[in-house]
């Protein structure tokens, strides 16, 4: 079960929740035109990148393979419940398993972060790499900082 982060008060720099909240901190909130904003080079790129994927040959092939592997006999019947599967996925916390083309955003965000960190924010290296999946879940990377 996905954990609801406790109120994030205090200086407890836990990164859980940060990834999901990032987009709010960066993209929403009050803007006052009399103030300047820190340059978000690299972060701006992420907004563009995050919308790619789905309609690509890679995705199609991956879906086709996934369908070939599905157990069709068990499939339709088993479909509505799936408690085992869901429990397993969330318990292990392995978000990586469940996404692929359905969510390239995680990597893109952490890549953009790394990018911003590495200063060379203008490199578009991370764009259009829908299959660039790392073994480690994205949070891991953030935690290294």
């Amino acid at each position, binding site marked *: 079960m996905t954990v*609801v982060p406790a109120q994030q008060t205090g200086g407890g720099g836990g990164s859980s929740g940060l990834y999901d909240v990032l987009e*709010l901190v960066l*993209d929403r909130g009050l803007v006052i035109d009399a103030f300047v904003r820190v340059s978000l080079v690299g972060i701006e790129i992420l907004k563009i990148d995050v919308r790619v994927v789905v309609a690509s040959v890679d995705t199609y*092939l991956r879906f*086709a393979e996934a*369908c070939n592997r599905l157990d069709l006999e068990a499939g*339709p019947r088993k479909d509505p419940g*799936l408690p085992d599967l*869901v429990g397993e996925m969330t318990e292990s916390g392995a978000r990586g398993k469940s996404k692929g083309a359905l969510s*390239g955003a995680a990597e893109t965000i952490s890549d953009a972060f790394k990018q911003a960190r590495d200063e060379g924010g203008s490199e578009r290296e991370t764009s259009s790499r829908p299959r660039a999946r790392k073994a480690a879940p994205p949070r891991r990377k953030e935690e290294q900082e």
Partner: protein
Amino acid sequence: MSTYVYGITAATHPSLPEGTGGVGDPPREVRILKEGGLAAVVSDAPEGLRPKRRELLAHQNVLSEVGADGCVLPMRFGSIAPDDKAVTGVLAERAEHYAERLGALDGRVEYNVKATHVEEAVLHHVMAQNPEIRALAESNRQAGGGTYETKIRLGEMVAAAVKDKEAEDATTLERALEPAADAVSVGPESTGWLANVSFLVKREAADDFLEAVERARGDMPHLEVRLNGPLPPYSFVEPGPAEPAGTAAGGADAGAG
């Protein structure tokens, strides 16, 4: 010395986090600037501030502290005023507007909900509901995987069906949670998640909202629903639709001013 602004709150806020560590390395001390009935939560702006993880965290932590005991209008990350006077100037100039927003958001917090499909589960759904896809998958399988063309065709059909399902599930999820919230703000669409929606919830109704989320999780086990909150009301600071993201892309540098 330019001034980093975290948020705007009422001067009567019971526990402003004066002295807390803010952005920068070493962390700049949080200060409070009062003007009329309003207070701005600020610190000195470090030179060359960048949107790094620790800075974002610092911004979020300061706002969480302010938000824990009262209403705050959170600034978007990275807002820098030329000096303290410019901040109090803005507070004075737009006092009425900010007071109105603080009143409207008082006692309310934001919960952000993001959902993704559990891929295998959604593929089962798609196959179950679509005989054509099932037939093509079956014939591919019998042909030892199928040709490149038939794989692409199958993949295209599946991708389209998954997309439809995403839209359908996003609507269902939003409708399921909406009744437990005061206001809803739909975030930018992306392929990272099928739903990215923020809900403004009264503090005392938070339990009802959390229950609604749990129910939705139970009703839609093929979704992974991620919940974050309570948060300062990032998505509800402006009454109208949020400004287009482009307005922030001026590339203004932290070093300026």
